[in-house]
């Protein structure tokens, strides 16, 4: 363009450029949303019962970051299946469970009950991912030729089969190879309803930066780093556990970045182009000679491996799990779907934003509302039943009903979640960023030949 005539034009152009820089720049967009959530959570902590306590603020910010990272991670993994390839997998929880239980079988010490193989953490993580990928392939082989809605039913049924089997007393503890004399017996177990302890877990290496005995921080001393960091934190009023959780959250954030990188890499390649084509119209891809089954199986395996890893980072880090927790239920899969749909299926940045908005506004935020309302309005003891609350309505005393509602906000979150899903499907099925074009090549296609090269 030529030099603009008016100064105003120049200003506007600079302004436009700045706006695109911010909103067309994905890391900045994510940062802006996170900043917004942090401001909101800080404000909510300030007006809540803990008031201006710095420790409480830090603790709440770390919690929302933690959940954001987990949901972002899972939404990204699901985005590979659904967003990129159009594979409607609603068995995410099942693949997470496979990852976690395979991880447990590999890492739990042989002396524990239920026992495991006592292998190192890295082996457990790799094994958990491989196991999830393996189960994914087993599912994919027959199921991938099914219609999307049938695939949905198959995967959700599979995740329930997995979860129920893990709760079965028959698998609580079992011995393999007992009738093969030349192979040593191996005893494993899911722990069934009793659950399973995982002393080796992803939080340990993080804690070992701070503590000399990471398995039991209270027992041992602090490392040099631990002394410095924990000392500083304590003087600022931040609790010790918050610090180690914060450190773990940093690891999660790093993994989110890794997932993101991997997905962009997969997407911006000839491989990703075929995935996109499968999502759009599989028959066209076939007609161009692409063996879409191979692509689908590969991408299913990769996505399931990521889900397995997500499961390990999510559930195993607690050091204990049992298969009846929400993490392994279909409901968990739906949460992850909500996160992805909010952000916009197909968009990686959208997946991360969706994770943040889901974790912050839908999942954690409402719980603050309860605390804040209870703190600010003196509503008295909430009625313990709906009838008790509704009785007040007739006598035009709204306080009781309000107190009951606020007290049950944790359940009402799900109602809200459902409404959001319905709204998005009716009004904005592409979510925040799903309408955006994501590149499907490793080079800039718009660069016409004959020109300069593209780097």
């Amino acid at each position, binding site marked *: 363009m030529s030099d603009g005539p008016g100064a105003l034009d120049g200003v506007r152009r600079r302004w436009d450029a700045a706006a695109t820089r911010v909103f067309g720049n994905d890391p900045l967009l994510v940062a802006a949303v996170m900043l917004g959530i942090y401001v909101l959570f800080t404000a909510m902590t300030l007006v809540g019962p803990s008031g201006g306590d710095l420790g409480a603020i830090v603790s709440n910010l770390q919690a929302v970051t933690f959940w954001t990272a987990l949901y972002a991670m899972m939404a990204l993994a699901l985005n590979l299946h659904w967003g990129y390839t159009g594979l409607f997998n609603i068995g995410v929880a099942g693949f997470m469970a496979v990852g976690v239980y395979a991880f447990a079988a590999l890492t739990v010490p042989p002396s524990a009950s239920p026992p495991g193989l006592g292998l190192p953490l890295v082996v457990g993580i790799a094994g958990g991912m491989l196991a999830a990928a393996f189960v994914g392939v087993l599912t994919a082989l027959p199921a991938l030729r099914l219609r999307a809605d049938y695939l949905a039913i198959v995967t*959700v049924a599979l995740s329930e089969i997995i979860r129920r089997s893990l709760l079965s007393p028959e698998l609580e503890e079992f011995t393999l190879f007992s009738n093969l004399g030349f192979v040593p017996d191996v005893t494993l177990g899911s722990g069934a309803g009793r659950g399973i302890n995982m002393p080796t877990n992803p939080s340990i290496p993080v804690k070992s930066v701070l503590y000399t005995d990471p398995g039991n921080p209270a027992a041992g001393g602090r490392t040099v780093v631990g002394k410095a960091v924990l000392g500083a934190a304590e003087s600022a009023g931040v609790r010790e556990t918050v610090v180690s959780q914060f450190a773990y959250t940093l690891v999660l954030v790093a993994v989110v970045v890794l997932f993101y990188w991997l997905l962009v890499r997969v997407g911006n390649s000839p491989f990703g182009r075929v995935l996109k084509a499968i999502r759009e119209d599989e028959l066209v891809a076939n007609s161009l000679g692409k063996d879409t089954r191979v692509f689908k199986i590969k991408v299913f395996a990769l996505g399931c491996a990521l889900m397995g890893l997500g499961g390990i980072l999510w559930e195993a880090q607690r050091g204990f799990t049992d298969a009846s927790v929400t993490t392994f239920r279909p409901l968990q899969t739906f949460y992850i779907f909500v996160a992805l749909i909010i952000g916009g299926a197909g968009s990686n940045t959208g997946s991360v934003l969706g994770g943040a908005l889901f974790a912050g506004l839908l999942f954690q935020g409402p719980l603050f509302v309860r605390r804040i309302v209870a703190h600010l309005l003196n509503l008295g003891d909430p009625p313990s*039943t709906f009838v008790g609350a509704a009785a007040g309505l007739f006598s035009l005393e709204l306080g009781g009903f309000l107190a009951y509602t606020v007290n049950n906000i944790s359940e009402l979150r799900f109602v809200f979640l459902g409404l959001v899903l319905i709204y998005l499907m009716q009004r904005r099925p592409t979510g925040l960023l799903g309408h955006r074009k994501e590149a499907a090549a490793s080079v800039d296609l718009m660069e016409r030949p004959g020109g300069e090269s593209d780097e």
Partner: protein
Amino acid sequence: MSGTETLAGRVAPLREHPRLALVAGVVGIDVGLKLAGVWSPLPGGPLGVERLVTLLWNGLVIGLGVGLAGIGLSMTYSILRFANFAHGDYVTTGAFAGWACAWVVAAAGSGQLAGNVGGSLALGRAPDAPSAADLSVSVFGSPLAVVVGLVVAAVGTVVLTLAVDRTVFKPMRDAGGIPLLIASIGVALVIRYLIVFVYGGSSRGLTAEQTRLIVGGVDGRIALVTSRRTLREAQDGAVPVDAFYVELPVVDLGSYSAEVVAVSSAEFGLVVLALGLMYALHVTLQRTKLGTAMRATADNKDLARVTGIPTERVVRATWVIGGGLAGASGYLIALERGTLGFQLGWLLLLLIFAAVILGGIGSIYGAMVGGVLIGFTQSLAVVWIPSSFATAAAFAAMILVLVFRPEGIYGGVSTA
């Protein structure tokens, strides 16, 4: 009733589909081997005839409940072309609406209603509310309450399904199956957690202790009694005088003495009412043009519209029938279990899907038969595998059907 005709007429698939016949054959032969107590190549020990009869009865009870619920899911799946994940919560809604009403009627009947309307409606979840034991609702004890409850369960669910269709699904008629499926998950969450908001998260007892009818062998004859003690006394040779005891005029079974199966009044109620509702539906579809219109709409919506079939009216009829039966099934299943919690329908949903898929999506009779087959699968599975895998086995059966025969065992013929 015509259900049996339908069943008989539908053995044909076995002949046409060797794989299915093979599975059925292997299962049948193995049950025979296990009954005979001889060695069998498949896992699981010998099987007593009493256990088999009990398992079959349990399977039938579960299966009829699931099948009844499945009719609506099957109809909406084929006519509106999406898998409705809210269907399980329609089932739950029916159970809560119906039982709330049954409690009110029972409370009124026993003079405990004063000051207890709210508590009864809340199914005991209110301060000083009556409990299940106070009201002692049962099929034979308070039949009026049970029947009124059933009607309200159906009507209440119809109202809900129509309201949901109006606000959620109707504006999305042209959206694809997947957006509708996702929206239905949203609907499911809204309904389920509104129920929690009102009724709380814990489950409660609903009915009083059940009367039971026990079938047993007494020295080679088959007798009906209402208590185990009577049966034991009769088997010991003392024919009871003041207790219920009827001998059936069947062949002499030598010295056979055992309890065969116990049928609770609630199970009996479920079976009779479910079969009755299925029969009523059958008659309705035969006598009216509705069945034909539904078939046409399921086959091709656009064509149906062009040929003058009012598709929106068919859709509404579908919701009315499907929703009503879903609500009724929830109510009856809760009757049979004697307890009710907010997860009732959600936990049944996959079994309902299994029934629908087994019977062939779009087929009403298929859903009924599929329900019974899934009930049998789940209950008979324990002959071969530990009971903790029984539900998994039913899901696995569904997956196998979806993968190998997605048109269901009847081969995609829409029967209605």
